[in-house]
């Protein structure tokens, strides 16, 4: 408390008379000190002090000469004082920037807020004269200090970044942050020479991913420049190799927070193509961005369906992005101009993979397959082949074949779905039994089924009102007392 009072006194003194200007050093000393409490006090006081000075215009505007030169020079005492004070301000900013790397989050936050306040005040009372006369300037240097503070190389600063998000609402701040980030990426990544920096990249991502670009041109004067800066930033970010987790995160937000705001979305083609080629979950996610490019920007993708076909492996029914993937697959396969062999191959592969799928995925994929049959009646030979060869020893379909055209899917039948009619889940069995009969004209609605989770299924089942509960009639003889009990063979009750 005593310290706080002393600091407040000091601020009063400096602001009160120029004679006691030297007391500024006390503050700066505290700011660089070890004690957390003192540093916080000093930071707050500095904010107040230099804020007031900026508003009064007691800091030298224009290019700043070196301190010695300035003091030795022949300017008026007023000018000398201002220049001297400006140097103290510079020192203070440096001290605050240092504080942003401090261990305590409170201090970091305080330093961030103080710096942002300086940025705001400097924009109103510019220290550097604008180049073309009359236009306004933005204190880029200060903002660069802030951005550098926000993107440490060795630690996760997501908390501080989320605190910073409130400033990103302002168009000018956002624009110059984008510029600063672009510069920072170029600078930092050049040094590392293609070695991924997980923390740094993570920080950059958490800073730039929530950027809300304005939607309309009327919102902003230089919308185009803004877009270009945004595009440049992302391209420079994605140019470098990303860790796998970050890769997925970028792909997840690609379609709705990056591509729509780019000036030229086609520039993303390279990135997406590479991602699509990686395989696994990353490919599934890249599909969404690719879809937008194909659909809205006339991207010609050779062997797209072959690639999509090869994406189908047992894990697609188990991954988190199942809903998104099947939503897109449904879109891709909705064209009625697809050849029957291709659709048949997809049907056959999906149903073959369904043999390892959990019930919630099965409840989605069976109507999905039914829809494919409705769209492509030529495929119905898969479920209805009246005069086919009687006793085949092999399924003609070749699962390992990568070319859908070579997979001989049209010669096969959907034995997999017939197998699923014996599935333990009653709803799955019922759904599979639908293919025994001729299908209705109207397509099933998949939207509700895509997001189905196992817990929802369970909950639905448990909440059903039972009319009657059949009971086991075989008299119990003990825990493992049933006839031919498997447990009795392998477990003991010890």
């Amino acid at each position, binding site marked *: 408390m005593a310290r706080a009072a002393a600091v407040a006194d000091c601020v009063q003194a400096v602001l009160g008379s120029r004679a006691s200007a030297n007391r500024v050093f006390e503050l700066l000393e505290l700011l660089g000190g070890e004690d957390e409490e003192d540093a916080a006090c000093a930071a707050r006081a500095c904010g107040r002090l230099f804020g007031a000075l900026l508003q009064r215009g007691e800091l030298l505007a224009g290019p700043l000469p070196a301190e010695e030169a300035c003091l030795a020079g022949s300017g008026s005492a007023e000018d000398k004082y201002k220049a001297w004070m400006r140097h103290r301000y510079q020192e203070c900013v440096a001290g605050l920037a240092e504080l942003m790397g401090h261990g305590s989050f409170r201090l970091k936050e305080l330093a961030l807020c103080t710096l942002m306040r300086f940025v705001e005040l400097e924009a109103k009372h510019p220290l550097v004269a604008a180049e073309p006369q009359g236009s306004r300037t933005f204190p880029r240097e200060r903002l660069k200090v802030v951005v550098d503070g926000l993107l440490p190389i060795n630690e996760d600063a997501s908390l501080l970044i989320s605190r910073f998000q409130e400033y990103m609402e302002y168009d000018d701040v956002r624009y110059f942050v984008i510029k600063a980030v672009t510069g920072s990426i170029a600078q930092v990544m050049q040094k590392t020479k293609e070695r991924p920096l997980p923390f740094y990249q993570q920080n950059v991502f958490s800073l730039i991913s929530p950027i809300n670009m304005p939607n309309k041109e009327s919102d902003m004067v230089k919308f185009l420049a803004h877009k270009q800066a945004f595009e440049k930033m992302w391209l420079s970010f994605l140019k470098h190799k990303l860790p796998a987790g970050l890769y997925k995160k970028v792909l997840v937000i690609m379609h709705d927070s990056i591509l729509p705001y780019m000036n030229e979305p086609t520039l993303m083609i390279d990135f997406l193509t590479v991602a699509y080629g990686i395989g696994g979950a990353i490919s599934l996610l890249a599909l969404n961005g690719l879809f937008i490019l194909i659909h809205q920007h006339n991207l010609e993708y050779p062997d797209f369906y072959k690639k999509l076909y090869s994406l189908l492996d047992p*894990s697609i029914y*188990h991954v988190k992005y199942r809903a998104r993937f099947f939503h897109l697959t449904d879109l891709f396969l909705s064209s009625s101009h697809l050849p029957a062999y291709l659709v048949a191959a997809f049907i056959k592969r999906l149903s*073959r993979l369904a*043999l*390892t799928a*959990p*019930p919630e995925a099965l409840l989605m994929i069976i109507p999905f397959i039914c829809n494919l049959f409705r769209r492509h009646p030529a495929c119905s030979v898969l*479920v*209805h*082949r*009246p005069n*086919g060869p*009687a*006793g*085949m*020893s*092999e*399924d003609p379909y070749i699962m390992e074949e990568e070319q859908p055209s070579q997979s001989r899917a049209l010669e096969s*039948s959907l*034995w*997999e779905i*017939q*197998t699923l009619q*014996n*599935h*333990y*889940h*009653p709803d799955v*069995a019922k759904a599979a039994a639908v293919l*025994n*009969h*001729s299908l209705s004209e109207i397509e099933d609605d998949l939207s509700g089924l895509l997001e189905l989770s*196992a*817990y929802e299924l*369970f*909950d639905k*089942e*448990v909440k*059903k009102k039972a*009319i*009657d*509960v*059949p*009971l*086991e*009639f075989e*008299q*119990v003889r*003990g*825990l493992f007392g*049933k006839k*031919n*009990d*498997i*447990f009795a063979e*392998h*477990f*003991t*009750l*010890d």
Partner: protein
Amino acid sequence: MGKAAKRKRKVSVPSTAKGPVKSAMAMVKSNPFEVKVNRQKFNILGRKTKNDVGLPGVSRSKAIKKRTQTLLKEYKEREKTNVFKDKRFGEYNTKISPEEKMIRRFTLERQKNYGKKNIYNLNEDEELTHYGQSLAEIEKMNDIIDSDSDTEERGTLSAELTAAHFGGGGGLLRKKASSGQQDEEEEKPKSRKELIEEMITKSKQEKQERQTQRESALELTEKLDNDWKEIQTLIARKTPKSEKKDKEVEKPKPDEYDMIVRELGFEMKAKPSERMKTEEELAKEEQARLQKLEADRLRRMHGLDEQANKKKPSHVSADDLADGFILDKDDRRLLSYKVRRIGLEVTSVKASSPTSCSKQDFCLVSFCFYFLVPESYETFKSLLAGRTIEQQLIILDRIQKCNHPSLAVGNKAKLEKLFGFLLEYIGELATLDLPELRTIDKLVLPLYNLCQMFPEAASDSIKFILRDAAHDMEELIEVKGRATLPGLDMLIYLKITSLLFPTSDFMHPVVTPAFMYMSQLLTKCRITTLQDVIKGLFICCLFLEYVSLSKRFVPELINFLLGVLHISLPKKRAQGYTVVHPFSPVGKNLELLLVCDKKDLESWQKQNLPLSIVTRLKETSRTEMNHIRLSCLALCFDLIKKCAALYESLPSFHEIMHPVRVLLTQHVPVNEYPEKMQEWYHSALKELENKVKQYTPLISEKKKPVPLKQYTPKIVKVLEFGRKQGGSKKEQERKQLIQRHKRELKGAIREIRKDNQFLARMQLSEIMERDSARKRKVKELLGSLSAQEGEWKAMKRKRGKN
């Protein structure tokens, strides 16, 4: 139309006049001049004619008579204001009974006459009466009447008889008799012939009556005899000896003993109960019962119940507008097990057996015989705490018996609660550091019995446990992103579920959620330790047991077994097969089941895995761990073998088993395994390999042609012409009412018109009468005047002459 009026008049005719009118009517009807026949133009078959014959004269005279009695009276009294007042006491008071009324009247009269009217009349006394007539008066006339009537009543023949036999003494006698009997009713004199005929018919009738009476009496006695004979034969068959004895004794003299025997004969006989069944029969019955239950189970397994329960598309008529309007709803209920009572019997028998067998051990331990159902779980636990298994069983048994639902009203709810407590207790036993699985093994019995008694409550509490567990797991996944396999208690609960409920049903309120839960366990939970593997294998066993009868396909099971095999292999790129979620081809937690130690491999013996291993594995040594690993592997091979046997019939069996086969043939280092393990391995592989590959193309079921809807007009058969048809009952009633109203209105107008005519006639006749009277009077006057004039003239002439 005239009918209504006629009917009305008929009703209002005073009853006293009915008799003569009837006879007159008969007379009139026979008179062809009185009858008016309404001739029909066409004879229509089936039409009922009511008004084909009318009696216009009769009806007219009746109407006139009625009018003179009512309307004319009113007309004549139209300007008279005098009113007749009935001042008799209580004449119109219905509340007073007639006797009381008479008494009150009598007292009133007496009061009025109180006080002497004539002060000079000294011996004024009450007049004595009999039947309201003064005795004095009766005394005066009595003698004459009595003597007369007496002789006549006794001595004279009846008038009819005399009339019939002696000509009846002519019209005089007849007239006298008729006037004596019927005062005003004038009867036509009957002819002699008629009288005789009447008499003959009467006597004949009497004779016939007597005859029938005799016959019916005869019949009754005959019937009684027959009945007795039947009863007699019964007695004879049941107790031939006593019957014989009866007869011997009966003949000489009926004594008291006979009486009793006879009475016994009429009494209800005690019927012999069905004989005790032999063991063979019992076994047969039991078999039949089980067969029925099995058939039930199969039906449910194929989900036929559900289809039957679904509303069948009802017949759609050609006129159906397909607007979804359905008149009746389907409220058939599901077929249910009818085991409950039988189950109860079994329960009591089985439950009592441990008591009897363990009694000798427990003569020392005496606990009270009456147990209340504990109110809370804590009291329940304290009740069982510290007892041996047998004692616990006895306590549970007694609680059940003392609180049987048939004994008191609230017992059902209490015992239902007991089921929950017991489940909780079992769960607690399973989560102990040293799980008391032997106790649980025994406690399953009372659990089963309770479940048989209260299926709904049991299913609810197990569902509750499942829901809790699933909810916990869901929360874990949300918070941590991964879940762990549950403790031994959940595994035991799942096992108990399979004991209590039929797991082969197509859809079951408890088993289906249990399936879902187990599926989540096998797909969502990370396998990080050896315990997890054992738990997972336990769940695999559960799955296999659940589907062992229904042979349903469980993808998770195959996936998990594949994963288990995968983690028993040394780290390398998997080729030709893919493992899915809980397992990953690369990364952590691989080689969990890998055993490299040669010595351990050789010393391994297949052992049954103790379940308690799930809770404590840490203190076991390395060798033991390796042995457990190998046992797990052996179990896995066995499960694969069982799966192969189970899913043999599935059309894509080979596709399902393909990854497993690839792994077994290409990756598993068979040669390094001990011999026993190789046996397991080969038996599993053999089961996989020697299955025929048979694929027949699918053919979907033929579509039924849908009949076209035709909007043809509705055609209704007309069965009777002339009658108004159609419309609902209400509408018909309304129509009827309208018609009746119309008819009544017409009738009333007609009546009013006739009344007016009648009145006019009356007025006219009055005027005519008055006129004629006046004319007569004028004539008289004129006559007298002319006579006077004549006399006067004659006098004048006389005088003139004279």
